[in-house]
């Protein structure tokens, strides 16, 4: 049984200009110990997807439906209170994008790391702080920093604190939402190494959300491409990087320089579609150089030996 199985997840929100289809019928699953990396351009709905899984909805949410099975239970059916008590941080925790602002400026970092233990595990404050101290050591920060405030820490240290906070309750699934985007390259590498080490040591399951394909390749067992609120390609890393199927994924990989081969860097023409009013049919059609007549109809997910792709080019090959 998959650890997490998402089926037809939908999250639309209302704006003055109309409905934004941020997450539009997304399905995927993750096994325990696996890392799924979801890549896509800015504004393709990756962050909305991660928030939809942990039910952090914007105030102006319009539609929120679908099924999310965690260890076989559909957590979409839980009441708000049960979801808060049983799922949030106990089962699914999250490392937020822009961690510099993810910590409360007026609480000591130790308290913030220990907080979930007090709420969810019924621990006393002292005991929880002891655990937090241990966890903070594990992410490579000196114990003494438990009593510091976030502004006394560097960006990289704060990100490590945020990671410690995400792991303190030993959750089944950790969502990493652009965990290194606000950091400089060296710190980024350190944090990535930390994430890799923790994954190995603790057999963690990650959903890694990023716009950086190179970073994704470091951590991912499975890769997914997200485009205009939909997942358009989903495959094992090997197959995904070795033989990308969707024209968009191909172009995405082609737009990133690599060390090992000498290749022409080709930018993707056009701009990402507006989620208010996405193109009819295949959403990549306006930017795709292989577009056909049938692309005006929305393609289903085709599966080629487990490599799934939402593109009409593969209609006969299933």
């Amino acid at each position, binding site marked *: 049984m998959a650890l997490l199985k998402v089926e037809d997840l939908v999250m639309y929100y209302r704006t003055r200009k109309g409905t934004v289809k941020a997450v539009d019928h997304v399905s995927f699953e993750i096994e325990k110990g696996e890392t799924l990396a979801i890549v896509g351009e800015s504004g393709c709905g990756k962050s909305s997807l991660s928030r939809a899984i942990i039910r952090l909805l914007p105030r102006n949410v319009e539609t929120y439906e679908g099924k999310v099975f965690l260890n076989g239970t559909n957590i979409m059916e839980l009441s708000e209170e049960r979801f808060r008590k049983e799922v949030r941080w106990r089962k699914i925790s999250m490392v937020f994008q822009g961690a510099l602002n993810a910590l409360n400026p007026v609480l000591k970092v130790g308290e913030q790391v220990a907080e*979930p233990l007090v709420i969810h595990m019924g621990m006393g404050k002292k005991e929880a702080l002891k655990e937090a101290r241990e966890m903070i050591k594990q992410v490579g920060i000196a114990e003494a920093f438990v009593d510091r405030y976030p502004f006394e820490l560097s960006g990289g240290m704060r990100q490590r604190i945020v990671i410690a906070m995400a792991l303190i309750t030993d959750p089944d699934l950790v969502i990493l939402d652009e965990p290194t985007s606000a950091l400089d390259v060296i710190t980024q590498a350190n944090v990535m190494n930390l994430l890799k080490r923790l994954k190995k040591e603790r057999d963690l399951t990650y959903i890694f959300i990023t716009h950086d394909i190179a970073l994704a390749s470091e951590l991912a067992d499975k890769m997914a491409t997200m485009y205009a609120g939909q997942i358009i390609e989903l495959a094992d890393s090997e197959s995904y990087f070795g033989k990308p199927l969707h024209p968009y994924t191909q172009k995405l990989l082609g737009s990133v320089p690599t060390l090992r081969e000498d290749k022409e860097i080709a930018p993707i023409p056009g701009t990402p579609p507006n989620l208010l009013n996405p193109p009819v049919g295949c959403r990549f059609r306006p930017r795709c150089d292989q577009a056909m007549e049938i692309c005006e109809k929305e393609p289903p997910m085709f599966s080629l030996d487990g490599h799934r792709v939402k593109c009409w080019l593969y209609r006969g090959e299933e």
Partner: protein
Amino acid sequence: MPPVVKVLVKRALILFVIVLIATYITILVANVGGYIDDLKKKEIEFQVAQAVQNNPQYKDLSPAEKTALIKKLAQVEIKRQGLDQPFIIRSFRYLWDAITLDLGRAEKMTSDSGSRSVRIIILERLPQTILLFTTATVINFFIGLFGGLSLSRKFGSFLDKLVIYLSPTSAIPGWFYGIFLIMIFYTWLHVLPPGGLVDYPPPPDPVGYVLSVLKHMILPLLSWVVSSFFIGIYSNRTFFLLYSTEDYVEVAKAKGLPPRQIERRYILRPALPPIITQFAFAVVFSWSGAIITETVFNWPGLGLAYYQAINLVDVPVIVGITVVFGYLIAATVFILEILYGLVDPRIKAGMGEAL
């Protein structure tokens, strides 16, 4: 000396200099840059002339002698009052008296008990002002704070919209609502007194006295509460909405904190410095009373005294009230500096590193 103490001493000195400057400017303005002195000299000459004319002792003097005498006596009186010195020198003497809180005697006003001492004029009025307006301010503050906080949770709801639409009702000042309240509760329903501090004659026993004062407080209090009800909630709601869009609030939510704890630790705590500031200044300003509300409700407060002093150009009273408020505001700012350091670790660190 620890750095924090150094910073605080420095701040205290700066605040004192500001009070000094503000008081001096008030002295200049209240004296119309010395013009008031010319008026006073003329007044003295007039009074002396009258006295000489009416004094039978000087009946036999020739007009020239009388004029000379009047001039001489007037000079003596002017000298006695220190008006012969240039204004600029005297202005600094006034400043010294004001800053050392030697508030002197009123020129025209008297206190309710008949004293001319500026200190007594102020102290007699201050308790009533605090009783009414500070109470109103505190009530309004907490209505705004908790109303705003709970409304920010219901963003976009019917209640939220209703409060937004009703907030312009606060453009009408409290005393205006006061007139309506008097019409309803006194003229029409006859249940509450239209104004004043206490029944006449005042109840002899203390309990009866307090109850009577409370009864007289209801309408003026209500007028202020009604007047700032919606704008208070609306502005606090917007303030909390801003603070609740911070990333760490979302993190707290993801962590599964109960809503009450998110509100307390992740919204209220970081927002504490501006809230304390708002509260402290609202309280200080409430001490100055409110001229029109005091007039409408015939409430013997400081606002009315200030208004009378301005009308009578009673310089010592104007300067006295100003300097007392200067000190009060400076003290508030100083206490706030310390409180900020206590509630916000970032500011505390800044104070430690400032020198």
